[in-house]
């Protein structure tokens, strides 16, 4: 399967005024450029907006340029809309599971997909208010709308205006990567950029790519009533994740009726009447799946084209994005990059953290390194999979011996009480020490639980000291306490045990 990129599908018009706060009003006029900006930012997504705000708050003269919608992927077509519909889909799952929780399950459960999507749009509008052009302008940021491109090593052109800068930031983000499958474009497909514009739940859905977003949406739409098939080329499900985490999620998805096909390639797509016939092959086994919609989620491609990177002396790669060093500097030392256009992990919270690094390094001669960040992330399936720090394989690659302390969620009282026993807490420590080097949590609220371990890693708190933290009883996060208690148990060596017995005799 070869990959190519296509331009973002345009978002359809809608009736609820959704975009009016994050796009320029009809009367919007780009400001008159300052003589020279301390910082010019290309891209009004999370990384760009956060950097602009922080820099402006320090008194810097900042220009923020956006060609489309302020707020970027996360707010408009990524994290927020997906989490919003996941919440509704969880409710339907709970309703169906009511008897297991000692409640009476409704005889018939009618899914109101339109209501779920309407709620999602309302929430998107509400959260987008904080990133309106007016608010950013009021914060002292010069907001420009239009396509920007570098005209030299220290100038950017936008809407026929030339902006001069001391420093610049490339935060142009990324767009969905589309596989070049014969017939796919003709048959039509969804990506995260337009899936949230669906007005009715597809009866049958094929998801190409079993990555985090694909899994999240597959499970959510399945719970809304869609018959979902996930197809991925890789032989292992969520191959970058802890094997047990992937296996647990794979089990859960199968139990909910999702057909996960690993080691499978899409050969071609054919349109037949209202349905799409997708031809698949796995080793020597061929099959065809008939679906109503196809969702593509094989990854994202950095937006590096048509912004004059060559003119500015910024090196880039169409797959990996803008080349940066550990200080987020590009090959033009006055130009920085952050966010999806250059970082391996494309998460909103990483953009937040790296935006702070950009402000310090670009404006205040800072030397902060992106590699020093402790980065957690979470896949918001049910159960969620959250991770922070190193995986075991990564540690071994670096020559660090690892020991993992494992606590299944079914041993955690609160998880049992909540009927949320699927999952575990695994904390990896450097062997013969209590230094935490990473952790994976699989739990219904893993994204919340992992915070405690992130805090410990950031604060250099070892597993032994973590055992002294008192958790209110009962909480699911107490699994961390149980893991740290396990660490302390083996420290009773035979000699120490003997001495203790003598002491207590």
């Amino acid at each position, binding site marked *: 399967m070869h990959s190519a990129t296509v331009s973002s599908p345009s978002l359809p018009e809608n009736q609820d005024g959704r975009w009016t706060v994050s796009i320029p009003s009809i009367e919007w006029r780009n400001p008159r450029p300052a003589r020279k900006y301390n910082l010019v930012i290309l891209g009004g997504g999370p990384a760009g907006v956060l950097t602009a705000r922080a820099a402006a708050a320090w008194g810097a003269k900042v220009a923020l340029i956006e060609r489309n919608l302020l707020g970027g992927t996360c707010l408009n077509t990524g994290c927020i809309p997906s989490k919003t519909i996941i919440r509704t889909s969880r409710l339907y799952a709970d309703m169906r599971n009511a*008897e*297991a929780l000692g409640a009476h399950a409704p005889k018939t459960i009618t899914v109101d997909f339109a209501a779920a999507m309407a709620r999602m749009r309302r929430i998107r509008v509400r959260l987008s208010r904080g990133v309106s052009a007016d608010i950013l302008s009021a914060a002292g940021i010069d907001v420009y709308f239009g396509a920007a491109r570098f005209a030299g090593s220290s100038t950017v052109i936008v809407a026929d205006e030339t902006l001069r800068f001391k420093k610049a930031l490339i935060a142009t983000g990324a767009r969905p990567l589309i596989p070049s499958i014969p017939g796919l474009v003709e048959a039509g497909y969804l990506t995260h950029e337009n899936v949230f514009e669906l007005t009715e739940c597809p009866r049958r859905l094929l998801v190409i790519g079993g990555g985090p977003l694909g899994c999240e949406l597959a499970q959510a739409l399945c719970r809304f009533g869609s018959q979902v098939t996930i197809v991925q080329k*890789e*032989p*292992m499900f969520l191959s970058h994740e802890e*094997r*047990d985490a992937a*296996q*647990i999620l794979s*089990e859960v998805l*199968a*139990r909910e009726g999702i057909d996960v096909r690993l*080691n499978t390639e899409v050969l071609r797509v054919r349109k037949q009447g209202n349905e799409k016939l997708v031809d698949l092959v796995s*080793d*020597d086994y061929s099959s065809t799946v008939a679906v109503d919609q196809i969702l593509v989620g094989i990854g994202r491609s950095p937006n590096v084209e048509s912004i004059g990177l060559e003119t500015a002396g910024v090196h880039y790669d169409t797959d990996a994005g803008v080349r940066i060093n550990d200080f987020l500097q590009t090959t033009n030392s006055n130009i920085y990059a952050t966010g999806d256009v250059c970082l391996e992990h494309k998460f909103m919270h990483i953009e937040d953290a790296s935006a702070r690094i950009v402000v310090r390094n670009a404006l205040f001669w800072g030397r902060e390194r992106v590699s020093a960040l402790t980065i957690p992330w979470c896949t918001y399936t049910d159960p969620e999979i959250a991770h922070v720090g190193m995986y*075991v*394989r990564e540690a*071994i*690659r670096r020559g660090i*011996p*690892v*020991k*993992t*302390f*494992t606590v*299944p969620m*079914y*041993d955690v009282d609160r998880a049992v009480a909540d009927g949320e*026993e699927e999952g*575990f807490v*695994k904390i990896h420590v450097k*062997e013969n020490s209590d230094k935490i080097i990473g952790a994976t949590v699989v739990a219904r609220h893993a994204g919340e639980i992992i915070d405690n371990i992130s805090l410990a890693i950031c604060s250099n708190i070892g597993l032994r000291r973590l055992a002294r933290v008192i958790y209110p009883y009962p909480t699911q996060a107490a699994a961390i306490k149980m893991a740290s208690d*396990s*660490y302390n*148990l*083996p420290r009773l060596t035979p000699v120490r045990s003997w001495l203790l017995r003598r002491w207590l005799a």
Partner: protein
Amino acid sequence: MLSNDDLLDHLQSAACGYFLRETNLANGLVADSTRVGAPASIAVVGFALSVYPVAVERGWMPREQAVERVLLTLRFFWRSSQGETGSVTGYKGFYYHFLDLQTGQRVWQSELSLIDTSLLLAGALTAAAYFTGRTNSEAEIRELADSLYRRVEWTWAQNDKTGLSQGWKPESGFLHYGWEGYNEAVLLYVLGLGSPTHPLPSTAYAAWTSTYQWENLYGYDFLYAGPLFVHQFSHAWVDFRSIRDRFMREKRSDYFENSRRATYIQREYSLRNPRGFRGYGRDCWGLTAGDGPSTEVPRADHPKHRLLGYAARGVPFGPDDGTIAPWAALASLPFAPEIALSAVRHYCERYPDMLKDYMLPSGFNPTVTGDGPQGWVSQGHFGLDQGIIVLMIENYRTQLIWKLMRDCRYIRRGLRSAGFRGGWL
């Protein structure tokens, strides 16, 4: 009440009976299971070749008959067709997982299987190590086993990578699955490293062990793998007591001790029984690869759950559908005899109808409706289960297979190349 020794004798001879009955005496191939139409499994043939020495030692089979069977089998594999097309028995010295019981050709579009070829070769080398007589027949056994082993092109199976692929198909090439995490592939790697003709480099073993995960679970430190068979199958042939590779030296443990802990963890899981399945407890444990229910209706007193059929079940995260493999306790007998024997006695006393003439089924599931307290019971018997029962009981009683393989130069060479030191090595 039967003594432990008498009970084990009954169980071992019953399991041995599988190989006496289910072998095609025209070519030595052994059926995968007793089910109608079952093909031959090369792994089961490997077990058969190892079972025959046990049967001779225990007086269940005359030596001449065992020699005849072993010769028949080894001659078949040596003369069988090897080639790149699908209508053969093997390729590059490896063999297809499932073969037609009569013709010996590939069936079910099965894969050219590395691990199953390893089990077959382990059996051939065991037979060669046992039949050391001066007769022409026994000399031929030794020559054939040696030739079969030397013919295997282990390095081809690396597919230009560091580690090994799991298999190959003529229609689509190498399977995209490699060996990741601790599993039954120890034997595969040891055999590959020990080859005098196409030896794997030590780096292949190091690449695989770099995917290991050392965990603390239920208070036990161990090299993690979920299904119990992973901790048992390589141990049927190799005596891992006190010999250690680099990983185990660093952990101050060994693979035998690791299997002991894995066995205790299995019992601990059953005691905790997080999914509330019927029957689980102190003497009813063993989540592993085996047969299980797939379509039966669960009992009314237990919520509906997903049934897995023939699958690899594991601890502590499943998959678990309430199915226990009773033979798994016997396969852990050398590691933890005290709890294994207790479990076996429990099966005999609590679920007598499940045993047919002392043969244990592949799996049973008391949570799923069936006749009697045992609930669903796997129909017929599987050669893998019966083979490991015979070998592990023997290793517990006399260490016969371990002793034979300790003297196998290829095993010793493979272990050393993998970095094993100490103990009998």
